[in-house]
């Protein structure tokens, strides 16, 4: 897939968006309805797509399509809409790129069950959540972890962190960006208890 035309179209969308739905409404809807589905969505891609290195890209493409559609009209059934979009995307990829045998998406029909993924909302699940996110933090490289802690917990500035750790200010920003990206991936995409009874 080439990116040029897409990017230009996106730009136009961004400038002329909101024909029917206000941009702030779309954003709130997306945060409220779509992002909590990320763990289930990632699970769906992991099961149905062989090349695991593609799945972050697939995720963003689904989000982009969903977001764009929501600018015209907020889908009434977000979960169904997200997973239908995901499935269509995989089908498109298989057809156009012919990189994956068709069997890879053979169990797409079984998707509806997967998509029924409640967001954990019980206090009882809080401990799992806590352990999970602590483990996420532990997974960061030591220096990135330290930068995250100093920036978030200590509230230190870029320069203060750089001075304290004896590294360059640009390095501080890079570590922090990497830390944010990793923690967000884990917090949204790998949250435990996203499936009832699992």
């Amino acid at each position, binding site marked *: 897939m080439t990116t040029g035309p897409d990017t230009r179209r996106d730009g136009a969308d961004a400038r002329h*968006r909101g024909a029917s739905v206000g941009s702030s409404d779309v954003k709130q809807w997306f945060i409220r309805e779509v992002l909590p589905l990320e763990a289930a969505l990632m699970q769906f891609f992991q099961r149905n797509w062989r090349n695991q290195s593609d799945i972050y890209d697939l995720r963003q493409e689904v*989000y*982009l399509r969903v977001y764009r559609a929501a600018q015209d009209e907020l889908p009434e059934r977000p979960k169904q809409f997200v997973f239908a979009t995901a499935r269509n995307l995989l089908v498109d990829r298989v057809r156009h790129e012919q990189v994956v045998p068709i069997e890879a998406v053979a169990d797409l029909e079984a998707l509806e069950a997967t998509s029924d993924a409640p967001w954990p*909302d019980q206090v009882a699940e809080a401990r799992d959540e806590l352990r999970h996110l602590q483990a996420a933090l532990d997974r960061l490289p030591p220096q990135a972890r330290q930068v995250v802690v100093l920036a978030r917990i200590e*509230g230190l500035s870029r320069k203060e962190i750089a001075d304290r750790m004896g590294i360059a200010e640009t390095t501080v920003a890079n570590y922090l960006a990497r830390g944010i990206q990793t923690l967000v991936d884990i917090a949204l995409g790998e949250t435990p208890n996203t499936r009832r009874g699992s």
Partner: protein
Amino acid sequence: MTEQALVPAADATEQAAQWLARRMIGPWTEADQAELDQWLGESLANEVAFVRMEAGWDRTERLSALRDPGFGSQRSAAPARPRYWGVRAAAALFLLSAAGIGWALLPSTSKPESFSTPVGGHKAITLTDGTQIELNTNTLIRTEFRSSRRQVALIKGEAYFQVRHDANRPFVVLAAGHRVIDLGTKFLVRNDAGQLRVSLIEGKAELQSASQDIQQHSVVLTPGDVAVASASSLNVARMPNKELHDELGWRRGVIVFSHTTLAQAAAEFNRYNETKIVIADEAARDRVIGATLPAHDVEAFADVAREIFGLKIQKRDGEIVITR
């Protein structure tokens, strides 16, 4: 061909994280914001990546905001959270605490809460973000923590703030129609019947006025600055370190007077005590004193008046009247 060119989504995701990092640790100027806005406008992919990254980070932010070393302490007036007590020890591991669950449903990190002191009261509070607030006598504040900002309304009285700075989540004090925005700070705010006084002890803060009558709407305060603002005026003066220190005497339980008239001193004392000092003699009102007195010791004040100025003391119910 670079990898970025082939994987635009990953690129946008990475850049979104970089923007967040930049904004978080600063410096963050209007020019930076304009640059971010431009990047967001460049493609919907950028916007979507940023919305996701911000909301996702916000989620871990909420979790960390519940990290809570202060709540267990004796001096804290903050309400306990018994439902989560079991995980408090684990939360000390710093970053992430429980109870951020159902995040998409929660409009804010915590419900608004009020804290108050009676006349003569003194209370220290540690908020969930580590910010410490000390309430002086006869004070009422209301805290409201949202994911994007921390807000405290000083409804009446005086409070000393030691703010845990977070560039990503500004700390704002609302009082008497003005706003004090933390830029990494320790400061004292007093709301005396609509008259606002902000003393900057350490760091930096911005004072913004909501009033249209004031030409200068905003001023950045640095250590030693004392701003006095009313509905129609905003003045900033520089105060020597010692006087700033004296202003915080109440934190140690004392009131420090230096070159203070007896009338002013009495008014200050009366903030802390139900027994009010009345100076009935006009000439005595302008006598100047310098003393450090326990805030709750009305008798000590009377002694000073009697022994140093040779004034007469009359005790009535609820009053100490000073005459010549």
